[in-house]
């Protein structure tokens, strides 16, 4: 689905937003406060980035008392990372290289 790709690429093209998403992937569930401490931008800016990430379906939020916890959505990047199609392209290329080598090899 190219539209899903577009949204994901557009959302993650911003380095600060990408760093926030990367941290959620790596470290799991976090509050806005914890994310702000490491983001190097203000809390409202972090909240705004989280809103955009949420809209793109990359993160979800969960309210716990007065705090909102954010986490990366499993499978959010699935449309981008169909490894089977990546590897199929890789191996097709390698098969070409193998055939070239076989032509050059002695019997």
């Amino acid at each position: 689905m190219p539209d899903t790709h577009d949204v994901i690429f557009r959302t993650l093209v911003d380095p600060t937003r990408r760093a926030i998403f990367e941290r959620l992937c790596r470290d799991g569930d976090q509050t806005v406060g914890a994310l702000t401490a490491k983001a190097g931008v203000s809390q409202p800016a972090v909240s705004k980035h989280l809103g955009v990430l949420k809209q793109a379906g990359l993160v979800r939020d969960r309210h716990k008392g007065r705090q909102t916890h954010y986490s990366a959505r499993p499978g959010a990047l699935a449309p981008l990372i169909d490894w089977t199609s990546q590897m199929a392209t890789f191996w097709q290329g390698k098969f070409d290289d193998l055939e070239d080598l076989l032509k050059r090899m002695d019997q």
Partner: protein
Amino acid sequence: MNQTSTETRAVVVERDIAFPPEKIWRALTQPHLIAEWLMKNDFKPAVDHRFNFRGDWGSVDCRVLTIEPNKTLSYTWDAMGLESVVTWTLTPTSTGTHLRMEQAGFRPDQEQAYQGAKFGWQKFFANLEQTLARAD
């Protein structure tokens, strides 16, 4: 998440090649020949031998699983969060060999998905670059 992380998927690439299995087998199992078409490596045709493929983007951790000379070869292929098994099958034909490669692996979980996506982007940009180069 545990539920999805065990789901296996596979890539199959097959081709009829105009050379006998014995010759293809050499290209699949001799390190200096493997390096010419796949990647630099320290492969040895011995079951349980651990080796690496080294590309400019990183390396692949491997272990030899099965060897049946001129017929089948399989090794594990772990790279960028993907745990998989690559199996080569050589079948003689009247014109040469039917070569089949199957890579079966586990569906990436969250962290793996991220690593995979990074790889995807690199590929995406490499393809974009090629397209742009052709557009000149």
